Structure formats: C-alpha cells, structure tokens
C-alpha cells in the first residue's frame, strides 16, 4: 500500500543518522580500529547534524506502538521495584575483563618503568610503580648514579601532581574550550604571516632547556624563522649558573664528590637531599659521616648560612651570618686559605669557627669541598670555585663538566631583552612553554603588562595560573609521566623519559607544541624524541640501544667527560648603595619543597612540614627572637614588609639560629590562581625581589599591622626538655666510650612486666634501625610513606589542631643557645613495641601483635576510642577525626596503592612497616620455597632515604643488616626506660666538632 511504503521511506530517512548507522560506518572503517580525531568522524555524512540534535531522531516520534506499551509497562514495573533497591547505594558498573591480556601484566602485580622527573631541567631518575598501567608510586632508579634507588621530596610527591584534578584539562582560547586542531589552525595562520618576515615577530620563552631533543627542535625553528628569538627564564639558580661563568670564563657544571671530602664548607648550601644531585650528595656525605661497622673517623662539616636549613643543621659547626656578609666571608676565607693575613672583617676571622675552618681546609687540600648554595649570588659562587681551586679540589673533589643546559645564558639579560621587545611591540607570536613568568619575574619588568602586548599569546602550562590568565591560547601541558622527553641528571647522565600513562587531560608536551612550527604539526612526542636519538645514535643496532636505554632509565656512559678549567678571583661586585643603612635585610630562598612555586598545588608538599620551621601550608617572615622583640611582634603576628617599592603582608615565625636583623622569605607562595592547594597558601614575596640582586635586598622596612595570621606548625616544642630523645655525642666521646649512648638511658629488665615474656619468634622477626648520624632531615621518607600508604591530606585548619596524618615524622630538636642552636633530626615511625602499650588498652582488639612481632592495626575492627593513641608514648598513631581521605575526586583515586586500605572516618591508623611489602616478599619467597632475603623487604621510607639512614629486616637472621646495626654500640631505644621494647631502634648521632660550642653567630 502507498501509505506503507511512505512510512518505510520516512523511516529510512529518519534512521539515516542514528547511532547504529554511525557505528556501522565506524565498523567498516579500515586501518586503525578507532577514530583518531573528531575530523575523521566529521567525514561521516551528517555526523555534524547528529551531534547538534539534542536527541536521536527516533526519540521524538513513536513509530512502534508495541514499543510504547511495553515501555510504559516496564516503567511501571521499574517504579514499583525501585523501592526495593533504593535502600542500598550501588552504582552501576560494568566490569570488562581483558579479552587479550597485555603482555607482562599480571593483575595484582605492579610493574616498574624507568623514567625521570626533571626539576629545573635536571633529571631525577625514577622507577615508577604501575598497577594495571596506572602509576601509583615513585622510587629512585637504583641503576642511576644520581639516585641509587633514592628520591628527593618533590620527586616523591610528583605522582600526586600527575593526578592533580586542578590541572588544565582542555585547550582554551580566551576562556573557551577549543580543539587542539583549532589551535594548530590558528598557528598555521600566524606562521604564514611570520614566514614572510622571517619570523621577526616570533618569541619563544622557555624555562631552562636541558633536553637535547627540545633544543634541536628550537634550533630547527630558529633556522626556519631566522629572525625569531628564543628566551629562557627561571627565577632560581642564577648565582649558580653565572658564578661558574664568572669564575671559569665559561658555563660549567660543578659535580661534588662528598665521598672523598674530609672537610666540607657549605656556604648557604642546602645540598643534603635537596636540589640537583642532592640525593646522591646526601648518600656520599653520609658515607663519610657514619661510624657503623667499627668506623672511628668522620669528615668535618662546617656551614655558614643565613636561615637554618636541614643541611646547616647537620653541620659540626654552623655560623649564621647576614646575607650581605656572605661575599665578605668567602673573600676573607679565600685570602686566609691563600695564606694572607685576613683583613677587613677582623671580628669574623678572629672567631674560633673561622680559624678552625681555615686550619682544617688547609690541612685537607684536594680532599675538601667549598660549596655555595643555589640561592647565593654569582659572586659567592665564583669565589667558592676559586677557593676550591686554591685548595686543589678542582678535578679531585669538585669535578667540572660542561653545563647541563643546552644554551646557558644570563637569564636576567634574556628576560630583560624579551620585555624590551614586547614593550616595543615587536612580538606578534609569544610562545610561553612552561614556567610562570607573570608570577615569578621581578616586578620592575612589569611582565604581566609586557606579555599582553604580544598579539598572539600561546601558553603551554599545567595550570590555569597567573600566566595562563593573560594568554589567549592555553594548552594543557603534559606531566613528566605522560610524555616522551630526555633530560640530564646532575652529572650529565642522560635519561630518555617515557610516559607511564596516556595524557590524562589530553595534554601536549613542549616537543609536540614545537612540532606545530614544522610541516608535520601532529608528530607525536614519541616520534620526535626517537627521531632525535636516531640521528644522534648512528651505527649499531638502534632498536636494541633504544630499548636498553628506556629500560634502564639512563643512556649508558652518557655522562660528559670532565673539563679542565681554571678559576680566577673575580672583582667584587659593586655593593648596592640604595637601601643600605637602617632597615632589615631580606634574603630570598627557594622553598625546600615547592621550590619557586612550581609545585605549589601539590597538597602533599604543602602539608609536609618544612625541615626546620616545621611549618605547613604557608611561608612565613622568618626572623630571630631578638629581631621580633625589637619589632614588638611574636609568632603569627602579621607584619607589612616594604622593600623595592612594594609592600607585602606576612606572618612572623621566630627561628632560632637566624641572624638578628635579617629576614628569610620563601618564594613560591601566595598564588592568586593555579589551584585549590596553592591558593591561599602563604604570601607572594617575588615583588620584593630586586632585579639587581635576586638573593637578598637591604634596607627593608617592617611594620607591625596588629593582625594575627595563624601558622600551622606540626611541632610546637623544640627543646628536648632534658629527656634526650636524641642521643648524641662527639666523635671524641664515642672513641673514649663507645657505649655512651646506651649508658645515657636506663633500660629496665624486660621481665618487669606482668605479661609472659617467654614468647619466641620462630619465623621472621621484623625490625628497623635508624642511624641519626646519617639522617639529614629532608623529609623524603614522609612523602614516600604518604604515597605508599594512601595517607590523607587534612588541610591547614586540621594541622592547626595537630591532626596531621603522617605515619612517620621527622622531629627536630634544638639544643644549646637559642641564637646559635644545635639542631637534631629524629624520624619517628611506629616503634612496633614488643610490649606495646596500645595493644593492651584497645577494647575491641583492633591493634594486635602478630607472630612476626608486628604491631598490626586492623582498620575494619577499629571503633575509634583513641585510647591506643593516648597510651602511645611516641604519639605515632594518627586518627581520622573526620573523613580525611578523598572519596570523591576521581583522579586522586587512581593514585592510590591498591594494596593498602583507604581509611575512612573514625579509624585509627599508623605505620605498619609497610606490611603490604612484607607480605608481597613473603609470598614470593614461599613460592620459591625459601626465606625472604635480607633486603628483599624495603619499606617506603627506607627505600627513598637519600642518605640510607633507615634499615629494615629480619632480626632472627643474625647476618641481616638490621641485626648488625642493632648490634652497634650506638644502638638505643627511644624511651627505652618505659620497657616498651621497641622494634625500631636508633643509632646515636655522632658529630665531629673541632672545638667546643657547635654553633656561632657573627
């Protein structure tokens, strides 16, 4: 019938574009199984129309009468049945098993991939633990000389940065979401114009470039567009770069050999566990400090610094001087080392510190190191290089290699030039790859205004930060674990970085952005990096080389050969006249964790207590007790600091060991944008930084505002109160009486208890020992533990009420005079007591001893009386007062270690010696019918410890390392007099002072 055929025709027409047909079209497609881009899909007829209709066509009209009835029937039934299921909240989830199991993947068994996490361009070699191709935890790469299995704080925390939900998630054009293709189109348009004028309007602003692939790409762009210019800017490390240049006449990279140094002078250096090579330096340094295994010698370590750092805290003698005296100090030292009678700084050289330092340095020619800190001026760096040369250390303990930077330049000049060009209106296309120049450049440049003068502003960045705010095109940048790249480590050993996961937020790497300048704008990072190395690695089997290099996480023998260079004593930099006289000296420091602010949105880092101040979530106006008294302020008083024509508001924190009249400020805080963790944390001190001297500024005015600003410190008491939790002594004391540490505390007879003591551990008896001499207080163990054990972040408000959740903490104690205190670190995890006070008092048996001596915590059984914590003399138990774990943010869930319970509210938790790792090793061993090897179980804290201060193992094996450590004469139990008999013990700290009185103030 006519009507019938009409209806069929109509149906055919309407159904032309339903989902089914699109699927059919896609199914028919040959080649790759999936469409690669929307464009490919767009080629399907009418697809656009399909997208624009709110509903598929069939949804509008009921063609099948039967279907409508059934639908209503089913709906009625569903409504009736809905009540039955409404009681439980069960999300619909589809579990799809692997049809083909990926090679190497065994569900439940993690895989480890080698890559690197570059910080300021310097690779931190890592192995990333991956569960079902989901990176969860970072470990150091044991094969790599820069790591040897350890990792520093920002590297440990990098895994959280990967899953940060605040990262940029889409390509944006003036606040609107666009496709990457649209960006490429815009670029093609702009580049077409630029080609005509040889790229005269193109400026590329990067951070310090160390990646050879990226450098070759930039070179290619500059070749194509000869008038284009490339600028570099980073707010840190200027002194380090320019100091070497000024001393040696060329850009060089000093590599220090602390394992060969008998005398070390750190000039405001913070090399123990921080900065490039910090991980390796800490281990080398510790190797000359530990007195385990019958050692009776130690290197001697002097530190001169302004604000106390964890490095200075480990020094045998620490001198605290104002930042402006630093250059004078090193020059006086240089003169004294050279045999000249000291002149000028008479009071300085007369000090015991100085005299002994000179004597020791002179006695250790070729076996000493003078190292300047990264926050110091170029002058101090240059003079330190010169002193090393005077002492014959160059080539011995200080090895020079070519600069790790691909094109080292004076970045201050570079950024100045860029600003001039911008202000002159010469820039049509400004490409900002990474960094955050609108935030971290000196205010005199007015970078914010200058950038906005460029016609087309393209930003590649991870966050919607201060720079993204003023750029038109904002492209989400990949995280280091999402991209292919390459980077050198501190000694130049090259790592090819491989991605662990496809970009979570469709990010692009700098390599991929630069490909937009070429004829192949969609080239993948993989192709770009591989092509570079293919050209470089001629001859031999490239594929095998490539596989080997990626697998190992380093390119064999890629460390450059040492360079011979001679340092000269540079002329003193003209002292800055303005601002002298009265006023305070401000010194600027990279934050030990968030550095120049690049990791400000990492909540683990924000909540990690700073080594000395123990502050979280904020920077502070660090000053001495006396300065605070002069100003009439105390902790948490908000003051207004005026310098450089700007005023900022910050809260005071008094710090013993800070020289009077000087104020230390951490960079990187006070973001207006970026993300939830970064915003509201601290105050921005970049405006106070003057162009002529990025290290410090004089003549600052400070005014009390009368306001109060709470600062969240995790430790409120700093003295040991005569209790000596840290047992320490000098090398001489140790030589005279090796057992002094054990004599310091009384350990009662273990039978003084009402509980039977005849229990024997037949299998394993796990134990831990911590060498306080080796511990450098860097706090890497804390983040490693947080990452491994799914430990929640609680936020500033909760830290203020001391509810932080860290299972291991690094206590810091002061001793001696408050102006020049000795500082000690003590990592405190759960002590796993044999007679555990916590177990006795739990009413529901939620914390119990097991047959291997572990003090287990059964989360499911815990009702949360908190009695165990009250009765714990070490206060290592942590309680979920509220729902601290993030159960909502999807991306953060991916980070979690699937082997560790995510704790809910109302449950006690604590260190378990990483019981999941113990069990993993036990299962492996059992399958092979053997005992667990010594060193097979390494808890997260011990694994990452840069100075290897923590050892773990089986106490039943007398040959195990931990048994040997515990047999040391320095071994003692914390609060041993309580007869808790902890399984974690400490080796007393031994220092090697040259004279009485470890600290001094100038």
């Amino acid at each position, binding site marked *: 019938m006519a009507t019938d055929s009409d209806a069929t025709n109509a149906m055919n027409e309407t159904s032309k574009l339903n989902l089914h047909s699109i699927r059919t079209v896609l199914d028919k497609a040959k080649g790759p199984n999936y469409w690669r881009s929307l464009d490919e899909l767009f080629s399907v007829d009418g697809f656009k129309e399909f997208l624009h209709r709110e509903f598929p066509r069939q949804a509008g009209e009921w063609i099948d009468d039967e279907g409508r009835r059934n639908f209503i029937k089913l709906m009625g039934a569903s409504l009736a049945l809905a009540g039955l299921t409404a009681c439980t909240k069960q999300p619909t989830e589809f579990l799809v098993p692997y049809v083909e199991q990926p090679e190497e993947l065994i569900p439940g068994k993690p895989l480890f991939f080698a890559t690197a996490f570059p910080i300021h361009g310097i690779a931190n070699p890592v192995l990333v633990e991956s569960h079902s191709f989901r990176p969860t935890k970072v470990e150091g790469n044991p094969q790599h000389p820069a790591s040897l299995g350890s990792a520093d704080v920002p590297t440990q925390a990098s895994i959280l940065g990967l899953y940060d939900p605040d990262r940029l998630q889409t390509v944006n054009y003036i606040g609107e979401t666009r496709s990457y293709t649209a960006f490429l189109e815009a670029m093609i348009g702009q580049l077409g114009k630029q080609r005509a004028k040889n790229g005269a309007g193109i400026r590329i602003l990067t951070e310090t470039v160390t990646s050879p692939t990226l450098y070759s790409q930039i070179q290619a762009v500059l070749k194509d567009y000869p008038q284009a210019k490339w600028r570099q800017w980073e707010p840190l490390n200027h002194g380090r770069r320019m100091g070497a240049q000024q001393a040696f006449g060329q850009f060089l990279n000093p590599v220090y050999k602390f394992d060969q140094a008998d005398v070390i002078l750190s000039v405001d250096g913070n090399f123990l566990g921080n900065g490039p090579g910090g991980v390796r330096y800490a281990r080398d340094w510790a190797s000359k400090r530990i007195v385990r295994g019958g050692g009776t010698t130690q290197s001697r370590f002097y530190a001169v610094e302004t604000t106390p750092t964890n490095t200075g805290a480990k020094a045998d003698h620490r001198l605290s001087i104002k930042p402006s005296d630093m250059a004078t100090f090193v020059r006086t030292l240089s003169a004294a080392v050279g045999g000249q009678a000291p002149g000028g700084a008479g009071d300085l050289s007369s000090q015991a510190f100085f005299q002994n330092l000179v004597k020791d340095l002179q006695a250790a020619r070729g076996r000493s190191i003078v190292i300047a800190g990264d926050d110091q001026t170029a002058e101090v760096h240059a003079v330190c290089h010169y002193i090393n040369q005077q002492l014959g250390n160059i080539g011995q303990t200080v090895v020079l290699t070519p600069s790790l930077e691909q094109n080292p330049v004076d970045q201050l000049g570079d950024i100045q030039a860029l600003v001039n060009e911008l202000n002159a209106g010469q820039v049509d296309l400004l490409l900002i790859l990474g960094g955050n120049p609108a935030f971290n450049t000196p205010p005199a440049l007015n970078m914010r205004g200058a950038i906005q003068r460029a016609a087309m502003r393209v930003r590649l960045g991870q966050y919607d930060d201060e720079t993204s705010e003023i750029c038109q095109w904002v492209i989400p940048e990949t995280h280091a674990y999402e991209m292919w790249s390459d980077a050198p480590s501190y000694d130049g050993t090259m790592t090819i970085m491989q991605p662990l996961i496809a970009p979570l937020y469709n990010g692009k790497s700098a390599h991929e952005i630069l490909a937009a300048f070429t004829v192949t704008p969609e080239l993948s990072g993989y192709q770009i990096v591989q092509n570079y190395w293919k050209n470089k690695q001629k001859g031999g089997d490239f594929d095998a080389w490539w596989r080997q290099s990626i697998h190992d996480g380093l390119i064999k023998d890629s460390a450059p050969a040492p360079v011979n260079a001679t340092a000269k004593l540079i002329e003193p930099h003209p002292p800055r006249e303005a601002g002298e006289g009265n006023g305070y000296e401000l010194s600027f420091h990279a934050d030990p964790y968030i550095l120049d602010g690049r990791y400000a949105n990492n909540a683990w880092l924000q909540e990690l207590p700073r080594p000395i101040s123990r502050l979280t979530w904020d920077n502070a106006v660090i000053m001495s007790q006396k300065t605070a008294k002069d100003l009439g302020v105390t902790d948490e008083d908000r003051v207004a600091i005026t310098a450089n024509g700007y005023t900022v508001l910050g809260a005071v924190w008094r710090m013993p060991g800070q020289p009077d009249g000087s104020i230390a400020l951490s960079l990187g805080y006070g973001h207006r944008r970026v993300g939830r963790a970064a915003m509201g944390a601290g105050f921005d001190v970049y405006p106070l930084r003057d162009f002529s001297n990025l290290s410090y500024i004089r003549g600052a005015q400070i005014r009390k505002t009368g306001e109060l600003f709470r600062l969240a410190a995790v*430790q*409120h*008491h*700093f*003295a*040991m*109160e*005569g*209790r000596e*939790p840290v047992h320490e002594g000098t090398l001489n004391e140790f030589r005279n009486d090796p057992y002094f540490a054990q004599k310091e505390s009384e350990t009662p007879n273990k039978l003084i208890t009402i509980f039977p003591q005849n229990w024997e551990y037949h299998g394993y008896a796990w134990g831990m020992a911590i060498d306080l001499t080796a511990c450098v207080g860097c706090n890497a163990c804390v983040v490693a533990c947080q990452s491994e054990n799914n430990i929640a972040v609680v936020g500033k408000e*909760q830290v203020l*009420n*001391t*509810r932080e959740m860290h299972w291991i*903490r690094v*206590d*810091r*104690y002061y001793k001696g005079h408050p102006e020049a205190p000795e500082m000690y670190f*003590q990592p*405190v995890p759960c002590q796993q007591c044999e007679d555990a*006070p916590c177990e*006795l*008092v*739990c*009413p*529901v*048996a939620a914390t119990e001893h097991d047959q291997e001596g572990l003090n287990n915590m059964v989360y499911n*059984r*815990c*009702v*949360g*009386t*908190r*009695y165990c*914590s*009250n*009765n714990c*003399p*070490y*206060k290592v*138990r*942590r*309680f*979920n*007062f*509220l*729902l601290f774990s993030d159960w909502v943010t999807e991306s953060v869930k991916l980070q979690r270690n699937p082997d560790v319970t995510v704790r809910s*509210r*109302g*449950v*006690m938790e604590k260190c378990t010696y990483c019981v999941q790792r113990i069990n993993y090793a036990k299962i492996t061993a059992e399958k092979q019918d053997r005992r667990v090897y010594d060193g097979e179980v390494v808890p997260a804290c011990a694994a990452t410890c840069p100075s290897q201060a923590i050892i773990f193992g089986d106490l039943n094996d007398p040959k195990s390392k931990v048994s040997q450590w515990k047999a040391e004469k320095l071994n003692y139990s*914390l*609060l041993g007099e*309580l007869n808790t008999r902890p399984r974690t013990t400490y080796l007393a700290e031994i220092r090697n002072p040259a004279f009485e009185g470890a600290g001094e103030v100038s």
Partner: protein
Amino acid sequence: MQQPVELPDRIEVGPVIDEGHSLASVSDKITGIVLKRKTTLGWIFGFLVSFAVLQNLMAAATWLFVKGVGVWGINIPVGWGFAIVNFVWWIGIGHAGTLISAILLLLNQSWRNAINRFAEAMTLFAVMCAGMFPVLHTGRPWLAYWLFPYPNTMDLWPQFRSPLLWDVFAVSTYFTISAVFWYVGLIPDLANLRDTSKKRWQQLVFGGLAMGWRGSARHWQRYEKASLLLAGLATPLVVSVHTVVSFDFAVSIVPGWHTTIFPPYFVAGAIYSGFAMVLSLMIPLRHFYGLQDVITMRHLNNMAKVTLATGLIVAYGYMMEAFFGYFSADTYEKFMIWNRMTGPYAMFYWTLILCNIITPQFLWFKRIRTNVFVLWCLSIVVNIGMWLERFVIVITSLHRDFLPSSWSMYWPTLWDWMTFTGTLGLFLTCIFLFVRVLPSITIFELRMLLPGARVKEPIAQ
C-alpha cells in the same frame, strides 16, 4: 546479757521530720505534689528552659554523627577531651544516690529516707548522661556495640585486658542495678498514688506501674528483703564503678594517669561531687515545693558533713599526687605535676584547688552548714571544681606526655560545649519530669519516721 547501752542522742540540728506531721498528712503532702498541685508557671518555665538546652545535645550529636568526632576539639596527642571529662563527672555525680540509698540503708541511717528517692533518680539520670559519652566519643559510634561480648560471625571477643571494656560492664551493671533498685522502691508509693488518684487514667497508669501492690504483710516482707538484697548489690558498686572508671586512667602509662591512688581518690571524688549535686538540687526543690518540713535542716547538715569529709579525702589525693610526682624522681611524673601547676593550664589547676580544697573548708562551720543559700552556692562551687578536676586529669596529662615533639594544646569547640550543656539539659529535663509525675520523696519511708510508726518491741534475748 547486758542491755545495749542507749547512746545519748547526738546533738542534732533538728529533727528528721518536723513536728505536727501525721501518717495521713505526709501522704497527702507528697502525693499532692503529683496529683493535686497545679502545674505552676515556674515548673513550666524551668522545664522549657531545660528542654531547650537539651536541644543543644540533639543538634551537637546530629552534627557529630554526620561529620565525625573531629567536630570536637580533640587531637593527637589529646585524644580524649570533653567527652571523657563529662563522662567521669556524670558518673561521679551518680554515686551519691547509690551511697544514700544503699549504704545508708544498710547502716540504718533513717535520715536518708526523705532524700533517697530523689538522690536515686538523680543517679539514674546522671548515669544516662554519662553513658551517652562513651558511645558519642567513639570514631564509629554505629559499631560501639562491638565492646559487648556477644556471639558473632566474626568469631571475635572484645579485648578483655582493656579498662574500657571493664567500663562497659561497670556502667551497664550500675545503671541496671540503680534502675531496678529505684523502681522497686517506687512500687509501694505508686500503689499509694493509684489509690489516691481520682482520675481514671491516672489510676490505670499508676495501677499498672504498681504491679499489683496491695500492701499485704507478705508484700512488705518481700519488699524489705528485696530492698536489702539490692542494697547489698548496690553497695559494692559505689566503690567499684568509679574504681573501674579510674582504671581507664590508672592502667595506662601516661604520666598523671598512671597512679595507684586513683581508685580511692576517684571514689571519694565521686561521692563528693554526688553529694554536692544532691545539695544543689534538693535545696531549690524543698524551697519551691515547700518541703522544708520533710527535708529538714538536719538533712542538709548531714549532707554538708559528708561533703566535707569526702572533700578532705579528695584534698589528700591532690596532695599525694603532687608528693609522688616529686618523690618518684621520675622525669615524666615530676614534669607532669610541675606542668599542671605552672603550665598553660595552670589556671584550671589552681581554680580546681580553690573550688575543691579551699572552699569546702567553710563547711567546718555550723553557721555555714545551716545557711541554705550559702550551702547551695558552695555545692555549685564543688560541682564546678569536680568538673575541673576531670578536665585537669584528662587534658593536662595528655597534652604534654613523653616526647616534647608531640606536645600540643587542647581547646574545646562550640560542639563540645553544646554536647556538655545538652547533657545538663537532659539531666534537668528528666529531673523536672520526675518531680512532676512521680513522688520525689518516699512516702512510706517518711511515714516510718513518724513517732506513730514506731513499734516498741521487747528486745529479743
């Protein structure tokens, strides 16, 4: 055999019951409060205020269940805060009732007859308030029943070495015995009310509650036996409950908690605060209900004396605590007591000394003991002092224990205060309801005090 020597009458401040009362007038007076007296505006006002304050508890507990115990000020190291302070305080208050109804019964202290019902009711309500805190303070209150030993699929018992578990037994036993004792004592009076009331519904309600009491000699004989047995059961509880509560602290290793003096010191403190609370409630009660003739000056005088005696024991406890802190030569103990006296919470400690040691010394003077208003004020001061004592014990011991790195402070939050005041509201609400609907004074026991009730019997040889 020698006749027992008749001891001379002690110098009393007054009779246990004023002259002029007959068996009938006592009945009328007490039952009248419940049955005839109109609900006064004062009662309505007091009840509404108490009930409104009770809403603090409802709001605070709801918020607590929604968010978790983190809404309170507790932290690490101070894992226990207001909840435990209040728990111990309320439990302590309960003790006076049990002492009055059980021990004084066994000791034949007939003056107790006028106050024991009220004191017992107070015990019950105080234990109700106290019992809530251990549940509220757990991190996962919906699992608090795991503290009870019951057969379960997890095949797990509670951990019997934990004092918190002993607490569960002690407090639940205490509540059960107190409730039964109180109710058994009520039965003859409920029957009295049933017989006196004129309204049908009242007769039905009181009749049901009276459980068929007819006042036969057999009833009375069984009643006396049950009372004695329950008193015998309750007597050890007076000592044991607070001893067990003190074990929560004494069994731990925390300096300031780990002391052998705690059990007697806690029991004395409990009775001390309990009697103070009885005074605080009884004085307004006798005033507003015109009960001066049955709750006489003699009662107040006696209670003041007990308060003074127990207060002196408590003072001895404080002194011993300080002495042993010094005498132990233990770093932590010495520091603990020094920190209490001079640390950040020193103000609390010295206020506590003022309230609990200095102020009660006024009770040596008869003029003060018999000045109703001053006595009432003193009782309030003692109540505050005893609350402070628990605060000092719980907080100052925890906030600075062994490792100086963990030292911190504890300050209560709004929710802490609302929970605490809310339980005060609950307590007063219950008291108001009690005095309105039940005879707050034991009628038949009061009648036994009348001269007419005395039966002269020849003493059996």
